[in-house]
């Protein structure tokens, strides 16, 4: 916008275009005061140092064979399958829950919202204990599942998925609820006046409108599920091939094979960076 004034009638040449933003950015950069700059740099270093250490100490030479060992693949595959299943489960029950919280009014909704968010702040180990008490062999629901259907959830792959869902679903619900609140509810009304039932309006109008929020929430939930440790080891145990996911494998390997632990950690680090890249439009650009 500043171009034409300076260059006069020749402003139509595209060469002057990029000048504007570049100049503006340079002007915006001003010296930060030291009392802010120093702690900021310490904070940055603190976050980056452990990651650097991971890269420095990585057994690069033996990495290929570490990563191709059967144990690693087993744990990685189990992690991916369980995290994906937990995300799918979260979508099926979490999106309707988010809709209920955002679009309907019922007594005690504030309390329900707080309860939904509780697993976000609850220590995952406590979540695992709670799941055991609810769905364990002697749990308040689990005993009936066992007695009536012969279903046992603890210490199974299904148990891993449930533990991960318990911890990860709130991320999806919170994200989708926020998107729903930002979306104009009058689109649903417009759909209704065109003859759509409330469910059709949700399916054909609301869902496409909030798709970006659902995608972002899914990625978040998936990443959280992938890294889940506390609730998983408490509720599902640590059986290789059945319930031993990557984080559990890392922890176990650290006791007897630190090189393997580092290799596994690198894999998880790579996945995390990929997740960040997937979410960059949402979080890495401010305002």
């Amino acid at each position, binding site marked *: 916008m500043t171009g034409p004034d300076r260059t006069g009638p020749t402003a139509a040449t595209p060469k002057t275009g990029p000048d504007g933003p570049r100049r503006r950015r340079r002007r915006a950069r001003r010296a930060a005061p030291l009392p802010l700059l120093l702690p900021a740099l310490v904070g940055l270093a603190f976050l980056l140092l452990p990651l650097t250490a991971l890269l420095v100490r990585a057994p690069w030479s033996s990495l290929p064979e570490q990563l191709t060992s059967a144990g690693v693949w087993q744990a990685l595959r189990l992690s991916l399958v369980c995290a994906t299943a937990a995300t799918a489960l979260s979508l099926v029950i979490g999106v309707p829950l988010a809709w209920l919280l955002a679009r309907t009014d019922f007594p005690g909704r504030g309390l329900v919202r707080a309860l939904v968010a509780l697993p976000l702040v609850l220590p995952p180990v406590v979540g695992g204990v709670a799941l055991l008490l609810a769905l364990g062999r002697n749990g308040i629901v689990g005993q009936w599942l066992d007695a009536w259907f012969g279903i046992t959830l603890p210490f199974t792959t299904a148990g891993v998925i449930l533990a991960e869902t318990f911890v990860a679903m709130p991320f999806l619900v919170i994200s989708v609820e926020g998107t729903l609140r930002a979306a104009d509810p009058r689109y649903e009304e*417009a759909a*209704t*006046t*065109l003859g*759509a039932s409330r469910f059709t309006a949700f399916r*054909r109008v609301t869902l496409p409108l909030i798709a970006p929020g659902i995608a972002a929430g899914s990625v978040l939930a998936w990443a959280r599920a992938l890294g889940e440790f506390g609730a998983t080891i408490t509720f599902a145990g640590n059986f290789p091939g059945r319930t031993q996911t990557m984080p559990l494998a890392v922890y176990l390997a650290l006791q007897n094979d630190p090189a393997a632990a580092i290799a596994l950690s690198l894999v998880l680090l790579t996945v995390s960076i990929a997740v960040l890249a997937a979410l960059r439009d949402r979080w890495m650009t401010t305002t």
Partner: protein
Amino acid sequence: MTPPQEPPAPADGAKPPQGPPAPDNDGRTGLDAHLVVAPTPTFHLDITLTATPGDVLALLGPNGAGKTTALRALAGLTPLTTGHLHLDGTDLLHTPPEHRPVGVVFQDYLLFPHLTALDNVAFGPRCQGATKSEARAHARDWLDRMGLADHTTAKPRHLSGGQAQRVALARALATHPRLLLLDEPLAALDARTRLEVRAQLRRHLAEFEAVAVLVTHDPLDAMVLADRLVVIEHGRIVQEGTPADIARHPRTDYIAQLVGLNLYKGRADGHTVRLDAGPAITTTEDLTGQVFVAFPPSAVTLHRDRPTGSSARNLWRCEVAGLETHGDQIRADLTGELPLAADLTTVAAAELDLHPGAPVWATVKATQTHAYPA
């Protein structure tokens, strides 16, 4: 007005999708509604609306008068506290919005941003049970009729304001509503587009064979588009009638301002009306009892000094309270013996040396006033 036309026949002989409610038709057609909505203790809407098919009704009123609430109540989006709602003899009071034969054009259109213009229009027929191809063929006919054949694949964000308005109208009409509701249909448009779209909308409304109700705060929109105006203030109907009738005989200050008239209430005795506000006005009408007196601001003549030998019977001493430009005219807001609005040319205003606080004499000829029973 052009005679009502049949809606376009859907292609490949598909039967047009119809609204679900089966009319228990007792012979009456059109709209018969008594809407009472009291969403908050401080606001209370209580209006009665009747219309026959082909009527275009405009709800006109200031912001917060309850126009949009009335529209939402007709559409079923806001529940009635009490009252009744009959459309073509069918009781719609307990019919949910998706089953009402009602089409709505929302203020900012609310076109579904993820769907093309075609799929926006096809949405209604789809919901009413048409197959995808039937619905699309039907939608294509409607867009064609709106002059939008070239924009079927456009997403709403690529449509101009006027085009979006027509898509919204097509979307509402594609469900064959028996009641078409338009909420401030022209408010989202800029002045130039507005003129053009208003003319198109007038044509489409004239072709519409059922009842249309539009809500607006713009008197011009209301007078151009509607056959009958219903003026609402504070949730109540204060006046209704044809545009010409309301323009000639305003009954509240709000309406008088809308149509650009000075309006006073008083007691008539022959040709003299003693105003509630103070002075008397001489009129040509010979009336007795409570009356309204109205005259346009252009009928007021201003003088710096007390005019002598003027034939005007009505002479008041006033003071300029404010001045604003209306096109090439200046509207002077006067206080004093009689508060009134006067229109004069820029040249005249300069010659009179008008400025806020300036004393002036205002005269109005009796022949330019209009008195009618209150």
